[in-house]
């Protein structure tokens, strides 16, 4: 099999807007799954609700497209009932951090052997661009027309604090690094979160002076701060530039995990 064999060809083209980063994340995930040598008989994709969560519908394997925010709870049931299945969860920032926040921290705490890939586009895309828990302060959305006044969640740091065995963050521009990070997540026993900063030109960029896809990509590229560089800045006592987000592998450890195949 090759990565292309995992696609439900009859459902393409997908529903994503032109320039959406979600499709790239699907590619990286399938390439990583293919690298693992997993098959249709032992792989399950699970998702909640939102743009990101439509992804399993384009993948030719067993898949569960569930209710808003609950994907990790469904995935916990699938994985514990049959540890022989490899479970990958697609989720978004609203799905994971807002309505599914409780399930998220508890999935990290339980450290159930699965990989969650969060496509963080900092907005509720499917409902038309409302503010989410990761919409940056000052950003315009349809529910924050005067700029978001709320501080944001750092999902990757949250997962580290809650106990996940592997946490990484990349962007939909850094496809090679993203693929490698997902592959590491798939290999790591226990819970793995790979947060992907993705572009949403339609609902985020359009309202926040990043109208073109290239503007959004440039924004992702220039605002990504490699974790090693951040650590160096801290060591040297230098300030970390405003508005940057850390990319790279944030943690990889061996806390006791649940649902690991015997």
């Amino acid at each position, binding site marked *: 099999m090759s990565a*292309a064999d995992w*696609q439900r060809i009859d459902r*393409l*083209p*997908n529903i*994503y*807007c*032109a*320039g*959406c*980063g*979600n*499709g*790239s994340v*699907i*590619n*990286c995930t399938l*390439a990583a799954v293919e690298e693992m040598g997993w098959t249709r008989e032992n792989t399950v994709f699970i998702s909640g609700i939102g743009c990101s969560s439509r992804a399993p519908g384009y993948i030719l394997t067993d898949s569960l497209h569930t209710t808003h925010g609950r994907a990790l709870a469904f995935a916990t049931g699938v994985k514990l009932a049959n540890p022989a299945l490899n479970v990958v969860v697609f989720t978004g920032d609203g799905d994971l951090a807002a309505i599914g926040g409780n399930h998220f921290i508890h999935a990290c705490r339980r450290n159930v052997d699965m990989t969650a890939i969060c496509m963080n586009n900092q907005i509720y895309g499917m409902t038309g661009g409302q503010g989410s828990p990761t919409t940056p302060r000052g950003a315009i959305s349809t529910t924050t027309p005067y700029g978001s006044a709320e501080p944001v969640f750092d999902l990757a740091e949250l997962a580290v604090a809650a106990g996940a065995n592997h946490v990484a963050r990349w962007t*939909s*521009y850094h*496809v*090679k690094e993203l*693929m490698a990070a997902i592959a590491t997540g798939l290999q790591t026993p226990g819970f793995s979160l790979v947060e992907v900063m993705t572009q949403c030109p339609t609902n985020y960029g359009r309202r926040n002076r990043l109208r073109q*896809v*290239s503007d959004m*990509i440039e924004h992702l590229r220039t605002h990504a701060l490699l974790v090693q560089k951040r650590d160096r800045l801290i060591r040297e006592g230098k300030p970390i530039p405003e508005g940057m987000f850390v990319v790279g592998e944030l943690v990889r450890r061996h806390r006791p995990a649940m649902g690991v195949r015997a």
Partner: protein
Amino acid sequence: MRLVIDESRCKGCNLCVLVCPYGIFREGREQNQRGVIVPELDRPERCTNCRLQHLYGRLLCGMCQMICPDQAIAWEEERPYEPHRVEVEF
């Protein structure tokens, strides 16, 4: 191997234009039947993947395919070389 864009899937986002290290993709100029301006290929034979995929037995660069959100980029086998007569005027 030959680099192809599947026009039935491409939505014209031009992400491939941004990432190709060889500058093979160029922003297109004309809409196709679906109303999408599909990127043009500028001398695609320069693509390493086209030339060296068989030699190395694996996908090489592949950035454009990996980032294409619409799964529209692929390499296909070229049909066997068919000789045809070329007249050269001196």
